[in-house]
């Protein structure tokens, strides 16, 4: 299985991984582990699990969290440090976009966005699509990579149909 992740990452710039609700956490960590084997500077945008929780999980799974800069939109705020930027809410799309853009100009090689499904819970479909389109354009212009996580259960939604148009590959996983 990991090879499927790796070849998708190698061959594409912007990827969506569609993961089923049932084993979402487990599968995302498989992807995170693969990405961290390949890249040294990764930005992880979390709309699902708080930064502190993820740090513990990383340690348990022996993933080097030192390679990551987190943008945490779940904890509702906190003190920024070199490893984490807190954003008020998953609704704060402008702030998320600003912070991702700032990292684009730095060493960051790839972004992991967790997840499109959560994005859609907090913002309407039109706004979400605009946001994804805008951030994908910026990532492309900077020749960086981005992986979007998404729930398999959302694959038929309007947003996913639209997003299909501007990503390189959608990988059911």
């Amino acid at each position, binding site marked *: 299985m990991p090879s499927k992740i790796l070849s998708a990452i190698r061959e594409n710039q912007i990827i969506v991984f569609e993961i089923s609700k049932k084993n979402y956490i487990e599968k995302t960590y498989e992807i995170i582990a693969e990405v961290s084997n390949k890249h040294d500077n990764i930005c992880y945008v979390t709309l699902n699990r708080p930064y502190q929780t993820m740090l513990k999980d990383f340690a348990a799974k022996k993933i080097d969290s030192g390679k990551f800069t987190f943008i945490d939109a779940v904890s509702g705020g906190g003190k920024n440090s070199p490893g984490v930027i807190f954003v008020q*809410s998953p*609704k*704060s799309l*402008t*702030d998320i*976009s*600003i912070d991702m853009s700032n990292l684009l100009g730095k060493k960051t090689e790839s972004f992991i966005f967790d997840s499109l499904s959560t994005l859609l819970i907090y913002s309407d479909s039109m706004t979400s699509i*605009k946001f994804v389109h805008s951030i994908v354009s910026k990532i492309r212009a900077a020749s960086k990579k981005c992986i979007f996580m998404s729930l398999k259960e959302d694959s038929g939604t309007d947003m996913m149909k639209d997003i299909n148009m501007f990503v390189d590959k959608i990988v059911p996983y």
Partner: protein
Amino acid sequence: MVAPPRHAKVKKGMKKRAATSRTSMKTRVRKITKRRPRSVPKNFQKKKIQEYVKTGIEGLDQLLDKGIPRGSSVIIAGGAGSGKTIMCLQTIYNAAKDGKKVLYMSFEETEERLLDHMKAFGWDVAKLPNRKDFVVKMCSIYDITRLLEAMMAKAEGDLMIDINPIMIPKGFKPDIVVIDSVTAIASAFQGKDTYRSYIENLFRYLQREGVTSFMITETEEVPTVFSPTGVEEFLADGVIVLYSLRKGDIRQNAIEVLKLRGASHMKKVVAMRVVSGVGIEVYPEQEVFGDIK
């Protein structure tokens, strides 16, 4: 040079006149200035000086292209807590660092509070090259009322322009003045007409003195009118609007340079943030997600 056609025409005309006689032109302008101070000197000054004021806020200066033409009066409009005070303090602190003389007229907060507020962002007036160049003056609307009475007593029509309408301290010649806020001043007036002549007088006075001014106005969250009577925004050379937009239980700040006479500028609403310990940050390339209703 993104000169609008009107501007270009004026410039051409000036050249022609200048060719006939430069000194007579000056005298003529001076005469006209006395009679109708608003009509000519604007373009005249623009041609002559072409100096621009920078805010020192990187993203905002990018929106403003070359900057704010020196001597302009700019309305800073926005709802409660949209960042008007911080933006102006940051701008004049940066200017004072550059050796400019600045004056902050506050109707809302005391000097002590303002200076404390500034310190929290790392703007320490004690560290300025010349502390005396940064003046905060606390005013009350009673000061304005009293001043107004004095003006009325002395005034006969246009003679009103001889009075310093904002009590600039004697002997202090500021390059930049901030008025926080024009809305507070407006509240001191009962009659609309007296307020109007006061405010016209104020604009004229600042222009004559060559002062670049920022006039804060308190507006709706998403304003359609940018000043207490709507007249100020026509008298002003520029209008910058600060938005604090609500999206459910969160807020997003945004900024727009709505107009700026005699200067090119970006015409779009872009993201802005108040960053702890830093101040206002403007992101000229960042669109704002969610509607500006």
